[in-house]
């Protein structure tokens, strides 16, 4: 039996690379965005102005993903900015996954630009795991035009750490016998599942590198970081038994949120936004045939203070109107009166929708009516498009009637307005 071989494939600067290839090869432009200081960024005017992806030349100016456009421009005044283009990213991602499926029987899509491949047993076909990895890397580059990093190992954790080593366009191996040399010298913040808070705690325990974490006393880690501490200790030692899963596990929660283009200063405006978010969440719950039992509202104020408030519903539901009422109540209970820049709805306590209707003692007819309205709205929107049916209050509103997720303007780029060279 072949030893387990797992690959982790990661597209280099996905959003930027994909837009670069699109402009160069599909639109027939002459400029390669990957070769100049360039970044994909949201619309500053809509207050979505953060860096989503950057080119290698941009990295040299210290530009970071997630920072504000204004900050990035201070570091590099000549930075070229391009808008997000999510429909393109979906196309690129699908083509990328399709190539991976040619090589591996089990592909787990981890995100829009990352995937794990279980290559166990394929060693006979390509010679060695590294040879297979190189073939995947070259095939994606030659057919689709963008570069990836491939991490090769015997488990998912090490494969993912491997793909994060030197970039771009490279294959790295990180088998258990290599972790001492390649992984232990790295700072502990580079380890998968170690975030800012954990890094701080580890620093205070005198642990700065992955090697130090691997050799630390597990009891000490458990005392300070509980189960998480034991997990990262295992990871630092290259131990991970998780499987590559083709099928995505069912969602444990459904939520949508949005940062508004202006601050909400009244109940009415906030509820206007919450209702639009509930329309989206409701339709997603119904699409997946689930009900939610818990609703939460997240508020982010203009000064970036956050607060969250949740409640259990009387009965699990998928009815938009019930979600809206719950959200409105949660908002009123927790709002401190200050201007709000971001609102979110999150539902949890997800159960599959039962076949038989649940009959409440009171309000049965009203519930049935609301369910009929929702079902009809879903059918009309599926047939004629999302915008074919909307509540009248959204006609002249700057808020989209089904808010949250990727907003319309980020899905495509109007190349008439954008100058493509």
């Amino acid at each position, binding site marked *: 039996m072949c030893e387990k071989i797992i690959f982790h494939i990661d597209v280099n600067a996905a959003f930027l690379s994909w837009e670069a*290839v*699109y402009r160069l*090869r599909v639109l027939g*432009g002459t400029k390669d965005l990957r070769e100049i200081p360039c970044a994909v960024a949201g619309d500053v005017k809509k207050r979505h102005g953060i860096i989503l992806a950057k080119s290698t030349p941009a990295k040299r100016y210290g530009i970071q993903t997630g920072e504000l456009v204004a900050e990035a421009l201070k570091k590099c005044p000549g930075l070229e900015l391009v808008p997000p283009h999510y429909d393109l990213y979906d196309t*690129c991602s*699908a083509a*990328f996954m399709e190539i991976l499926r040619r090589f591996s029987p089990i592909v787990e899509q981890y995100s829009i630009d990352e995937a794990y491949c279980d290559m166990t047993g394929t060693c006979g076909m390509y010679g060695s795991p590294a040879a297979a990895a190189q073939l995947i890397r070259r095939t994606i580059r030659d*057919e*689709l035009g*963008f570069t990836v990093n491939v991490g090769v190992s015997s488990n998912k954790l090490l494969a993912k750490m491997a793909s994060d080593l030197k970039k771009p366009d490279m294959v790295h191996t990180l088998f258990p016998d290599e972790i001492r040399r390649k992984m232990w010298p790295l700072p502990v913040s580079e380890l998968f599942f170690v975030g800012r808070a954990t890094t701080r705690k580890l620093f205070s325990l005198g642990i700065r590198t992955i090697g130090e974490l691997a050799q630390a006393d597990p009891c000490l880690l458990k005392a300070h970081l509980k189960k998480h501490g034991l997990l990262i200790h295992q990871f630092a030692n290259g131990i991970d038994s998780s499987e590559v899963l083709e099928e995505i596990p069912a969602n444990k929660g459904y939520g949508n949120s949005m940062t508004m283009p202006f601050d909400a200063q009244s109940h009415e405006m906030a509820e206007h936004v919450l209702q639009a978010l509930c329309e989206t969440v409701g339709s997603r719950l119904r699409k997946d045939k689930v009900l939610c039992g818990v609703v939460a509202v997240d508020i982010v104020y203009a000064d970036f203070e956050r607060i969250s408030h949740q409640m259990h519903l009387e009965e699990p539901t998928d009815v938009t109107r019930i979600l809206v009422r719950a959200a409105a109540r949660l908002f009123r209970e927790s709002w401190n009166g200050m201007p709000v820049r971001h609102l979110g709805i999150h539902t949890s306590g997800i159960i599959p929708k039962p076949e038989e209707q649940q009959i409440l003692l009171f309000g049965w007819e009203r519930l049935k009516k609301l369910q009929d309205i929702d079902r009809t709205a879903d059918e009309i929107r599926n047939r004629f498009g999302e915008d074919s049916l909307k509540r009248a209050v959204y006609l002249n509103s700057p808020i989209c009637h089904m808010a949250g997720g990727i907003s319309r303007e980020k899905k495509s780029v109007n190349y008439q307005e954008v100058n493509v060279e």
Partner: protein
Amino acid sequence: MRIPIDVIATFNTLGKIKPNYIRLEDEEHQLRTFRVEQVEYTKEEKWAGIPVMVFLCDIITGGLKKQITLFYYREQHKWMIDRGEKSWMWEENLV
């Protein structure tokens, strides 16, 4: 940059596509039609996951045979050429 053009093409029983005529506007906004004499080669490209068929075609213009690259964008059903190619298509041969 690429610009869209009008094309007449034939689809044979094996599903093969062959461009026969192309038509586009010149600088004076006059429509000019060219017959495709021969397709030198065909290639399928999928840059950024977008399927495009590439045809290298011979056309006769100004008494000379010239080569031009046609791009058929499968999903949009549009035919395009590089803007740069457009200008030399009606260069008259000064003898």
